[in-house]
């Protein structure tokens, strides 16, 4: 049986090789399913529950894209990727979109031939220390031992930052976040450093969160965003404007609850264009008029997704901070829908 599938695949491969490779949008439509690369498990961002249903901040974005393109937010195949395989999985076509809290950097965008379509979460690297250490600023961490995940941008940021500030430290290399928590909790290092969102959820999971503080310094910029492959601009546009639609919807007050009402009665032309009542933005990206409406309907607008997965009402309890709308003093700024 194994052999037949293998041989069948080879035949299929031979047949398909004759046809010019189709665009991602056509592939996704033909497949009837969006392949979305997510993290194998990151609290709040992407995790499978006991029944294998994926939830989380990044997962909601995948569902929104699937709803926009295929009309159904459940038509997503979540492909768990690790830090080592994520970009190759995207480049090789294993996934159509990568929504795996990946930092947008110059070399990833250019050298790795990815297109970061925007930023869905502005993060930054911070430090957590035990309160009884008596440290209130990261600048007082001279000579400290620091638990740090190897092979990540955080490792490089840490080295840069200590160098700039002329401080010394001893790194304690760890492999995964869980191991880092364990080592830090066991007292193997004075400070634990990772993205601030990760620190918050780690601290919340401790038996004694009140005995740990997150230092005020944020030592790096970590704009996390979904990515697509270079070279398929049409598909990249669809993914980019799905994210923009979610952000714009929050700005204009369009929620999953009131969208039908707004579509019928709102006089605001921007909302009407977004919801596909006016103009034809959808056909410009080879989708129908209702694409953005469907994307918002799955998990709500950006603010609703944030609140439901990682916001202050959840155990993770992240404040909006930089991730508020530009009108609220944050950095989220969707270009106009026109």
């Amino acid at each position, binding site marked *: 049986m194994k052999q*037949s599938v293998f041989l069948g695949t080879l035949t299929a491969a031979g047949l398909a*090789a004759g046809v010019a490779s*189709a665009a991602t949008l056509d592939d996704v439509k033909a497949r009837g399913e969006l392949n979305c690369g997510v993290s194998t*498990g990151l609290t709040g961002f992407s995790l499978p529950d*006991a029944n*294998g249903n994926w939830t989380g901040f990044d997962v909601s974005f995948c569902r929104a894209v699937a709803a926009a393109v295929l009309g159904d937010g459940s038509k997503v195949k979540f492909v768990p990727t*690790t830090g080592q395989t994520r970009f190759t999985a995207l480049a*090789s076509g*294993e996934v159509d979109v990568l929504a795996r809290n990946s930092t947008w950097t110059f070399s990833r965008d250019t050298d790795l031939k990815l297109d970061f379509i925007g930023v869905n979460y502005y993060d930054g690297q911070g430090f957590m220390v035990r309160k009884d250490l008596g440290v209130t600023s990261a600048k007082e961490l001279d000579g400290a031992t620091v638990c740090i995940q190897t092979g990540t941008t955080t490792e490089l940021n840490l080295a840069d930052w200590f160098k700039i500030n002329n401080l010394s430290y001893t790194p304690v290399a760890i492999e995964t976040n869980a191991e880092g928590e364990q080592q830090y909790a066991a007292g193997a290092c004075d400070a634990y450093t990772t993205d601030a969102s990760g620190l918050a959820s780690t601290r*919340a999971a401790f038996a004694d969160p009140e005995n740990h503080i997150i230092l005020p310094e944020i030592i790096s910029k970590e704009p996390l965003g979904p990515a697509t492959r270079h070279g398929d601009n049409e598909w990249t546009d669809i993914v980019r404007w799905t994210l923009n639609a979610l952000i714009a919807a929050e700005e204009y007050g369009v929620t999953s609850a009131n969208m039908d009402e707004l579509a019928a009665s709102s006089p605001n032309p921007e909302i009407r264009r977004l919801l596909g009542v006016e103009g034809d933005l959808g056909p410009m990206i080879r989708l129908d008029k209702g694409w953005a409406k469907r994307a918002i309907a799955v998990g709500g607008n950006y603010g609703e997704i944030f609140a439901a997965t990682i916001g202050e009402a959840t155990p993770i309890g992240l404040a909006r901070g930089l991730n508020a709308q530009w009108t609220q003093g944050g950095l989220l700024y969707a270009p106009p829908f026109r």
Partner: protein
Amino acid sequence: MSDTPAQTVPFVRDTMLPPAPPPASQAGALRWLRENLLSGPLNIALTLLGIGAVWYLLQGIVPWLAHSVWSADNLTQCRQIITDRWGEGATGACWAVIRERWTQFLFGFYPQHLYWRPTLAFALLFVALAPVLFARVPKKLLWFSVAYPFVAFWLLWGGSLFLPLTVAAGFGLGWAAFALLHRFGTIPAVAAAVLLPVLWWLLFAGDLSRDLTGLVGREVPFWLEQVRSDKFGGFVLAITIGVAGIALSLPLGIMLALGRQSDMFLIKTLAVSFIEFIRGVPLITLLFTASLLLNYFLPPGTTFDIILRVIIMVTLFAAAYIAEVIRGGLAALPRGQYEAADALGLDYWKAQRLIILPQALKISIPGIVSTFIGMFKDTTLVVFVGLLDPLKGITDAVRASTDWKGIYWEPYIFVGAIFFIFNFAMSRYSMHLERRLKTDHRQE
């Protein structure tokens, strides 16, 4: 004669003394202790050090285990219960996570209402293995062993019954061709036995299976609900990959070992380069190749099941090691055995089948089983290609939920214990097999 003084009374004992117990310091536990643990200053120091280390470990582990909590909804509740029962600062194991998520560790994300299928496949595995493993089981059951891969495939992945049936028919076709053409010589028979099934699978099997499925519809005896590979995880995944890898790598390994011993230049070169290449690269490299690199070569839109890719790679990997283990067994046979087979007038395959391999394989049993055990444990490496293996994939997924974030040792201990049961069983079976096959009368 002597001039011993006459007053010296001669004494001759005429009864045996009853045996006296040895002195307390020379018997029992005390002697054992003195001889083994306290025989000199160095050993006394080492003993004390050892006791200290054991004490230190037990001090940490015993209270932790004693304070186990078995039912709670999340880690916070677990900690609360431990604090309530054993006071502030007490630590304890929170087995509630296993109690709540054990199905995930075993079945991954396999649909819950279909758990009976992998369970049944697992139970049938033992029925299929019994005639292979134990001499007392009736040999007629071997027919079931032959059918088992198809049954297991159908149970695990579901879909139409006709897919495994038509594929099995291909093997039947090959066997029939071999049996019919055998009298015309080995080479045409083997060629027909390979080519016919391949043609069958490529040209007819897919269509026939589809047509038959269309004919009977998706009714219960012919159709099981399909389960996709991305739903596999935990021990269902580990055992599927492990069992398939073991079953496929042994015959492949034997062929490679024989190929390496062959006099034919081409076959020998191919076997040697394959074995040395595979043994020269780490398994993870092969897995990455399977999951990522392969997609560059296949045209876009091609789907090639990831579990199948991993099974192929794991099989190739294990086969190279098995080949070397068996080559060791072949090398251990005295030259006389080969010459005796020639003298009997047996052809190559008969000589291998009747004389050489039975002895060589018997010698290689410990090595083969070691390779199998290693391979079964290596299945956890699939986490690097995004499959949810029980050790890290599922554990990370469980930890990512806010309920269980912060849990660390319990899932590892649980998964480790299950791996231990499987591997220990394999190891004990190999010892049993060695005893059963022992034909020499060497003193031990």
